[in-house]
């Protein structure tokens, strides 16, 4: 297993604030890795350290087998970056910015450039100052995706895109995965990470609190169950792993830890099941729980 990114015990302070507080992060080569956390958790700071824009106070960071602070220019030849806040030069057109950034990275794929412009419905002739936030982001995304690089570093790339364009973006990322590229995708949009990512790391106040595949993370989460039984439920409330039970006659509604599901279902069957709906945990719930527990 090779790693495109491996970070351990990274610390970065800005005056009294500890933006990164012993962060560990590994991204495997060829995977789409979700980097999830609320605003201010340290996602952008981590990315900027990885890009050599900020210098870490301590800890180690390796990017494509190089040191992001010392081997900056050589590493940047092999990656493309979409910043969270895309600001364009007011009097340069989108097309000019795409060409500039692409050429600086060592050339861009003309066919993909044209194809992406069409799919994202972006007019490259408009000046930077006239683009909306979403369109500025599209400029940076098109520039990044039409470069032939090994690693894509995307910092909340869809925060200004409408749902239609977000679907286009997800298509594009899936294509990148098929091409064998590694993607680090930071986001606080949970559905996006859920739809796209092979593995996810969750960051909170400068630390990774959880990391794993979607399947692994679901073990930590609860399934919601709603059932109508033949007789009033008994004993369910006392089973381990059951939370927020609401019983009303023969109807019952509760949440259960995913790894305790088996025992709870047996108990339900004993009572006679008429209807049953269960909802898998969404990343959203997982996410909310993490932050509620921590409070």
């Amino acid at each position, binding site marked *: 297993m090779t790693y495109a990114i491996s970070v351990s015990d990274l610390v970065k302070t800005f005056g009294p604030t500890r933006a990164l507080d012993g962060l560990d992060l590994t991204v495997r080569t060829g995977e789409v890795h979700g980097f999830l956390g609320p605003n201010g958790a340290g996602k*952008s*700071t981590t990315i*900027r350290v990885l*890009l*050599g*824009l*900020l*210098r870490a106070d301590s800890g180690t960071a390796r990017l494509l087998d190089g040191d992001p602070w010392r081997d*900056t*220019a*050589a590493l*940047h*030849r092999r*990656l493309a*970056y979409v*910043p969270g*806040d*895309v*600001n*364009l*030069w*007011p*009097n*340069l*057109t989108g*097309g*000019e*910015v*795409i*060409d*500039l*950034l692409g*050429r*600086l*990275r*060592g050339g861009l794929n003309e066919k993909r450039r044209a194809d992406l412009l069409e799919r994202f419905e972006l*007019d*490259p*002739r*408009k*000046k930077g*100052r*006239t683009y909306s936030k979403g369109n500025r982001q599209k400029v*940076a995304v098109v520039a990044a995706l039409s470069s032939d690089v090994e690693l894509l*570093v995307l910092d909340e790339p869809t925060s200004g895109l409408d749902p239609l364009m977000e679907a286009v973006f997800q298509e594009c990322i899936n294509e990148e995965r098929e091409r064998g590229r590694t993607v680090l995708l930071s986001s606080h949009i949970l559905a996006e990470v859920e739809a796209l990512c092979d593995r996810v790391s969750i960051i909170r106040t400068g630390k990774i609190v959880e990391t794993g595949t979607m399947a692994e993370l679901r073990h930590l989460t609860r399934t919601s169950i709603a059932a109508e039984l033949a007789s009033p439920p008994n004993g369910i409330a006392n089973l381990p792993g059951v939370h927020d039970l609401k019983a009303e006659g023969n109807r019952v509604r509760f949440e259960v830890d995913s790894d305790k599901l088996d025992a709870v279902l047996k108990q339900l069957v004993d009572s006679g099941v008429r209807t049953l709906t269960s909802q898998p945990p969404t990343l959203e719930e997982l996410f909310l729980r993490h932050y509620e527990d921590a409070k």
Partner: protein
Amino acid sequence: MIGTWNLVRLALRRDRIILPVWIIAIVGITLSTATALEELYPVGQARQQLSLTANTNPAFLAMLGPLRDAHTLGGLLAWRWGLLAALAAGVMSMLLVTRHTRAEEEAGRLELIGSTVVGRHAPLAAAVLTAFGANVLIGGLIVALLLGKGLPAEGAIAFASSITVTGWAFTAVSAFTAQLSENSRTANSMAGAVVAGTYLVRAAGDSAGDSGPTWLTWLSPLGWAEQVHAFAGDRYWVFALPLALVVVLLTTSAVIVTKRDVGLGLLPTRLGSARGAPSLRSPFGLAWRLQRGSLIGWTAGLFLLGVVYGSIAQAVGDMVNDNPLMKKVISAIGGSGGLIDIYLATIFGMIGMISSIYLVQATLRLRSEETSFRAEPLLATPVSRPAWVASHFLFAIVGGALVLGAAGLGVGLTHGLREGDVGGILPRMLGAALAQLPAAWVVAGIALVLFGLFPQLTGVTWGVLGACLVLTMFGPVMKLPQLLMDLSPFTHLPKLPGATWTAEPLLWLVGAALVLVAAGFAGFRRRDLTT
């Protein structure tokens, strides 16, 4: 028009610093000019001489207009400052109106306001009323000051009104241009072109000579300000012209407001190129795109400044000769030598400092690119930090030489033509201009060191430049200790073209600049990018 007064209050709140600065500056310069004229030209022969030079030299006529009455202080003031004050009021009004109309609209803030109980015309009306009020305040203060100095009321009111009403005229001009483009910079450039154009048109008329097209002056709102003949006839009827212009332009603008959509302009936005030009492939290619406009503007501006100073050098030499006080002031700054050379040395000293503004501006572009997060995507490409810094700093180093060279060229050509010796004078003037470079490089080096090591303090560079200006220009007159004046790099420059050429101080300055630049580059390599 509902909500107009609330918007006026908002405009005054937002402009609570900048507007008083403009007003105090215009009124303050009026007062200091009047005081200086009183001292420099006591009644008698000096005024006769001045009148003769001012009304025969075309460069003076083009710059300031004719001197209609040299016998009264009012007449002198109207000549020396009347036109320029009207110009200043015009620029103030133009910036104010665009700031509160098109710029707000472009930023989308007007939409927010438009969704509240505010009439369709209220934003434009509020901006126009604010500008009108500011100009009235300027006029009122000037009248009060001049009456305090004992000048006749009729002339003082005519003089002050010519400033106020010109301010109104340009208020109306920019209220109109704000309707045309959806971009505030374009709106300002259009209004600015009108302001510059009206100045040039009347300059052509004023300097045309009796047989030339003197009627050109009547085509310009700034010409109308002159035609009032403040303190020399006080022709109040001339005010009918700018007032009519105001009515026409404001009515037209108000009609356009009701016809167009919020956010759009009357002129369609032009689309740019879909592809980057072949030159747009390196950090320098980008820096050229971002800085070329400023470089071209500064080069042209300094060339024109050189032309103006060069063409009056001879006449000023004569004038200074006739005025013992001015002779004293000039030789304190310009050193010894022929009077014209002394004058030119003073001019080149000034040009050196003005050009330093360009060098600092070109250097600090680095900082504004960084804080607006436009450096971040660039530095995430294979572009190294030193390469990016160099791409912009080159404009300070080489661009600075170009700007100073243009000024030297302007002075050399015009002064040379007047003296009939371009071949001899031009190289001397170019040399004198370029000799300013090492000091200007030191100032740019200070800007770069701050950028590399203390990025939050880059603004201090302007304070440093201001201090250098005070030390070198006014130090000798204020009799400051030499040790203090030596702090300014400009103090160490040989006072060319009069003084003897010495390379030693220039080499020291270049050395100091090199150290500063190296420290700036090293500092930026090590520090965090501002995020």
